[in-house]
């Protein structure tokens, strides 16, 4: 039997030119940049504090593994954010040289990188540590990449307030990794970062309002104006001070932490008040100072918790005893 009929026609030859994919120009450093290493370092630090203040013993190797998963998960969220926000990043001077808008990493590469890292970090945190921590990490990545980046950021001036929850989860994930549960202390650490985020980010928003407006991002200074932004920064700083002190008041941190929290909260409030009162023309240096001090405030506050635990001082000088045992 003939395999080909005599009347059959051969297919047309393939075209002489074949479209090849453009070779990638991304270096290893570009992929590292996709993970937002500075944000990642803050995430690792706050998650470490969550682990250290958690009750019970957490084996150092398991703690290191959990921290690595949390760091990689944070990096995945950063990569997904850069993939989706490439159009915004391209028109802002602060972000124009990021790997995707600069053309060194293709959007598809950033997306694949983010998804693979997210999958690995969640699955291995769940397999090797516990499912609660993995679930919280998955929710955090989803919240940052989808709820904040794809929805809130381009839709509402409250974007960084609600989206700030994503940055507040790491100590809770650290706590959950160490204990398998969620305790009062981890909720307090969550609240500290949650109420710290608005004055921190709006200080930057005041300095970059023009760029955000050009990029079409409805940051509060762009939508509601400078005066309203400064008023809301003051209000959040008023809440942040007591929330920062609350671990000491409720007996989950010692006197050293309490002193640091009172002084730091007072400094934040004083700067927010100064920013509220200063004329708009003279606002920039105060906003810069508040932005810088806010970073120092959060770092010192969490470092105080670490140092107290290291020195065994967490039960020294508690005003009302342990309110929640």
């Amino acid at each position, binding site marked *: 039997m003939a395999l080909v009929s005599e009347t059959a026609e051969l297919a047309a030859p393939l075209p002489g030119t074949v479209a090849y994919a453009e070779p990638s120009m991304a270096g290893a*450093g570009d992929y590292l940049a996709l993970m937002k290493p500075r944000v990642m370092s803050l995430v690792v630090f706050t998650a470490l504090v969550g682990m250290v203040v958690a009750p019970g013993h957490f084996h150092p190797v398991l703690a290191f593994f959990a921290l690595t998963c949390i760091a990689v998960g944070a990096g995945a969220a950063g990569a997904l954010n850069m993939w989706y926000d490439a159009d915004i990043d391209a028109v802002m001077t602060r972000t124009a040289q990021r790997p995707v808008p600069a053309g060194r990493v293709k959007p598809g590469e950033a997306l694949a990188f983010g998804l693979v890292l997210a999958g690995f970090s969640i699955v291995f945190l769940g397999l090797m540590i516990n499912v609660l921590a993995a679930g919280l990490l998955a929710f955090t990545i989803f919240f940052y990449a989808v709820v904040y980046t794809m929805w809130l950021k381009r839709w509402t001036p409250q974007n960084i307030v609600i989206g700030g929850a994503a940055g507040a989860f790491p100590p809770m994930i650290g706590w959950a990794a160490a204990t398998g549960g969620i305790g009062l202390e981890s909720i307090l650490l969550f609240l500290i970062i949650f109420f710290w985020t608005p004055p921190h980010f709006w200080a930057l928003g005041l300095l970059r309002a023009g760029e955000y407006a050009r990029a079409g991002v409805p940051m509060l200074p762009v939508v509601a104006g400078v005066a309203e932004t400064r008023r809301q920064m003051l209000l959040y700083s008023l809440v942040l001070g007591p929330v920062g002190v609350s671990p000491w008041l409720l007996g989950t941190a010692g006197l050293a932490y309490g002193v640091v929290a009172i002084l730091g909260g007072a400094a934040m409030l004083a700067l927010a008040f100064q920013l509220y009162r200063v004329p708009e023309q003279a606002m920039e240096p105060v906003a810069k100072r508040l932005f810088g001090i806010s970073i120092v405030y959060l770092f010192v506050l969490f470092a105080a918790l670490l140092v107290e635990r290291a020195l065994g001082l967490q039960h020294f000088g508690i005003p009302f005893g342990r309110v929640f045992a």
Partner: protein
Amino acid sequence: MSLVMDQQPTEPGIVLTAEQKRRRRGRSIAIALALAVFVALIFAVTLVKGPGVMMRPL
């Protein structure tokens, strides 16, 4: 065999520049290092957890 299959490619295909080769090498080394760290971490965790390595408390 058909004429189409006998034809040799007329183009050299993708030819990487020196810079592209350097970056590809950097990426390859980074992937190798990440895999090595990953294997070492899993090994260490397995040693610590022992026979209960796959026990996952909620």
